[in-house]
């Protein structure tokens, strides 16, 4: 029965956010809120590989692109539900997009996860670029013009759908990292030789983390495709991967709570600083954004929360553990 509580919480939170968005927010803010949901999927799933498993991947935009384009192409040709049930198409698209991306993650992961550190970062970066360039040159998916007229709305149900995915991702990854598999991920990060000598199949564990992470990146791509109703390879440039890495690093590698914090800050900060232009007449946003990151790296390189989660932030728990 305990397994139900998490799901109930996810539904309540997703519904509450969606109600709030529909009642009080203008379309512009609703859009930002949707991006937060999508970024939650991206950041928490990247954290699984980069933070928990200690493998530095820079290819998240590539996996997102695979999910986005697969989901978009499917949605143009396959609409099992019509009318008022239309919303039920979108979970199907997201699952298909995620699965396509997971499959790609499997085939990319097996050879490249033998590498570590900078080498893995370069390979995954290369993978992301390959995907983008391929999409750019594939006429079937619109090439550089991109894809237009994808189904998807910004009504209550769509918002609920996006936040349900966000909540589900957090819930599932939370459960995963608090299981024997999670400990295996951490052991690989801490000392892969020792992990291997304790009977951990480190290759398998790394590929597993990579595939699960790719699935959620693909699902995020699907949500993105149907939130913007159009796709363009330019949305999946290297910078997109870096943005996700920044969210993870800013919040704290190996902390799901930290990733959520990172998502909210990195998504909202540039938007919140927009009015500043009225006073300064020049765009200082990126300057401030980079200053924040530089200061962060100097003052607290482990990220805002380090590897602590919400339940370890309460002072009495910390005192007990120290």
């Amino acid at each position: 029965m305990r397994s139900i509580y998490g799901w109930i919480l996810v539904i309540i939170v997703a519904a509450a956010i969606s109600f709030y968005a529909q009642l009080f927010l203008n379309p512009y803010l609703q859009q930002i809120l949707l991006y937060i949901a999508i970024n939650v999927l991206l950041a928490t799933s990247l954290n699984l590989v980069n933070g928990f498993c200690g493998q530095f991947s820079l290819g998240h935009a590539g996996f997102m692109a695979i999910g986005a384009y697969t989901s978009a192409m499917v949605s143009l040709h396959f609409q099992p539900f019509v009318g008022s049930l239309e919303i039920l198409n979108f979970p199907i698209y997201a699952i298909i997009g995620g699965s396509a991306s997971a499959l790609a993650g499997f085939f990319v992961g097996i050879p490249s996860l033998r590498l570590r550190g900078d080498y893995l970062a370069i390979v995954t970066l290369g993978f992301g670029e390959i995907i983008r360039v391929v999409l750019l040159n594939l006429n079937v998916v619109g090439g550089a013009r991109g894809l237009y007229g994808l189904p998807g709305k910004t009504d209550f149900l769509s918002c609920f759908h996006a936040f349900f995915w966000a909540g589900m991702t957090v819930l599932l990854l939370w459960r995963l990292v608090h299981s024997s598999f999670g400990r295996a991920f951490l052991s690989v990060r801490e000392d892969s030789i020792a992990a291997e000598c304790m009977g951990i199949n480190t290759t398998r564990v790394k590929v597993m983390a990579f595939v699960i992470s790719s699935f959620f990146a693909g699902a995020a791509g699907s949500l993105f495709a149907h939130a913007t109703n159009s796709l363009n390879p330019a949305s999946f440039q290297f910078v997109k991967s870096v943005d996700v890495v920044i969210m993870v690093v800013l919040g704290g590698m190996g902390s799901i709570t930290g990733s959520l914090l990172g998502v909210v800050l990195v998504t909202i900060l540039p938007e919140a600083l927009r009015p500043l232009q009225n006073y300064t007449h020049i765009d200082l946003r990126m300057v401030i954004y980079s200053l924040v990151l530089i200061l962060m790296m100097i003052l607290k390189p482990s990220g805002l929360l380090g590897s602590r989660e919400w339940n370890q932030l309460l002072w009495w728990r910390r005192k007990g553990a120290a």
Partner: protein
Amino acid sequence: MLLKLENVSIQFGGLKVIESMNTSIAQGELVGLIGPNGAGKTTAFNLISGIYSPTQGEIILEGRSLKGLKAFEVARQGVIRTFQNIRLFSTLSVLDNILVSMHQRCDYGLASVFLKLPKFFRAEKKFQEEAIKLLKLFKLDHLKDHEAGSLPYGVQRKIEIVRALAGKPKLLLLDEPAAGMNHSETDELMNLIERIRKEFNLAILLIEHDMKLVMGISHRLIVLDHGEIIAQGTPSEIQNNPKVIEAYLGVEETA
């Protein structure tokens, strides 16, 4: 015989680190592996635990060759080691360090994790209880929630042994378990090692530099020098072996 080494050699480039090593370890036996610095003791450990694979020869566990098996497969066959320079998962809690070793026996899949099926709770509960039981044996259970890397050196060494035990080894390889410990700590540790050997019916292969200690505890000793076994036998035999004395003390030059 539990473990048998047949003509095991390893070569790095032109350097022969271990040369045709022949030995065996019986069930429940405590064997000391000694030798001067650079004799190849740790390399022998790396060979047995599957980190290196021998360039020649075979390592046989319970009649089955370990040839071609990766380190994690060797560990799952029941050969588990500790490290000379402690390799704990330092940012994890003591309990989690031990639970990592039990992952190989984890019988639930991802579905049980994601849906929190009863199977998940049953297995987790069993693992935790087992881990705490092991920690109690070493009187470390009060430290279970501490970060492993923050604990004193001697305690970390013990945690490493507990972590190895959690993997249910048949053969436990201990690489200088008493290094950096004082006399009373060492004595306590040796009693403990003897106790776990009896309790779990383990074979133990032990690298140790403290001669008094290793002579006192071992049933049998293997002496390595320059990658070759120069002597094997009971502690008293080894003590009087001229080759061993030569390896450790050198010979007087005769003019």
